[in-house]
């Protein structure tokens, strides 16, 4: 730390650039971005709204824009993102702002539903438990994407979402891809149709911001590429 105090700019309000407030926050060792925001709320301005829950990178609640980059703030050390002695913290991009650092996550989760991102079961409680072969290629593909914490960092990072609000986005499409590769899921046709619509996987330009910024180290861009391959194959099979 170069100084005992950090210059923290927080973007508040829908017109964020014009509603910036600057706070001097005491610097500490091993301080996270979320610690900094919490200090502001607890000691400087109790009206500051923000969202967090687990503080250990599991719940996906605390994502914010930090110096213009989407990050999970509870697992981001402030020392890694400081620009000199300053940092700018704003609400997540590509989602409606409710207040200060809190965004409305509804459009994000609505897209999960629109992408058929739910389990399509075919068994009943009377059937034996379905065995899953952990070594199969499809299961390995599914496992690569199932640790998503729904933080919306990829959705905020995606320039295609920014330009095309209908686009389902990386998280929802990755979820669809994991279901397509899940031996227990019987919604193959429904998923393929859902990701082939106007806002579907074919709008992705493979710019890769989702994969670059995913805090869990997942690779939604490759999952979307997989969906493009499967929808193409399925279309050609239907034509034949």
């Amino acid at each position: 730390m170069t100084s005992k105090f950090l210059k923290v700019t927080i973007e508040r309000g829908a017109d964020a650039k014009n509603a910036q407030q600057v706070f001097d926050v005491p610097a500490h060792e091993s301080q996270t971005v979320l610690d900094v925001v919490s200090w502001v709320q607890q000691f400087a301005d109790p009206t500051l709204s923000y969202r967090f829950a687990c503080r250990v990178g599991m719940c996906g609640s605390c994502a914010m824009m930090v110096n213009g980059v989407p990050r999970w703030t509870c697992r981001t050390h402030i020392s890694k993102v400081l620009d000199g002695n300053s940092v700018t913290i704003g609400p997540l991009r590509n989602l409606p702002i409710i207040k200060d650092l809190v965004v409305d996550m509804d459009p994000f989760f609505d897209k999960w539903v629109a992408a058929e991102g739910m389990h399509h079961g075919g068994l009943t409680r009377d059937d034996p438990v379905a065995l899953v072969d952990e070594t199969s290629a499809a299961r390995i593909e599914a496992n690569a994407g199932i640790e998503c914490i729904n933080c919306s960092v990829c959705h905020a990072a995606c320039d295609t979402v920014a330009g095309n609000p209908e686009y389902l986005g990386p998280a929802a499409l990755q979820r669809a891809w994991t279901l397509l590769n899940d031996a227990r899921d019987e919604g193959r046709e429904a998923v393929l149709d859902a990701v082939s619509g106007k806002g579907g996987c074919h709008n992705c330009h493979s710019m890769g911001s989702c994969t670059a910024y995913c805090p869990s180290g997942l690779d939604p861009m490759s999952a979307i590429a997989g969906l493009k391959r499967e929808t193409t194959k399925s279309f050609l099979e239907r034509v034949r």
Partner: protein
Amino acid sequence: MLSLRLYLLQRITALLMAPLVLGHLAVIVYATQGGLSAAEILGRTHGSVPWLLFYGTFVFAVSIHAAIGVRAIVHEWAGLKGVVLEVVMWATGFGLFALGARAVWAVTFA
């Protein structure tokens, strides 16, 4: 905004164009390096069905490929949607095809 069909059309036309672009570049290099005059070039292309097919396919693929690409750009960068977006896409496609087809016709059969 981009459906599966538009996506496939753009990919298929890209596949078509890849060898045609290489052929076109080779023709440009050959014609300029070899010092062919306009009259000599026209003498070779005039009445030639292979050249008509080569550049005719090229123009056809370019018109589809570029129109879909322009559709994505004007939607994401200019916010066009609905009927306006469809009109811009079709106008781009037909416009490019008209310009290209006129040129191909001129060097092969006009």
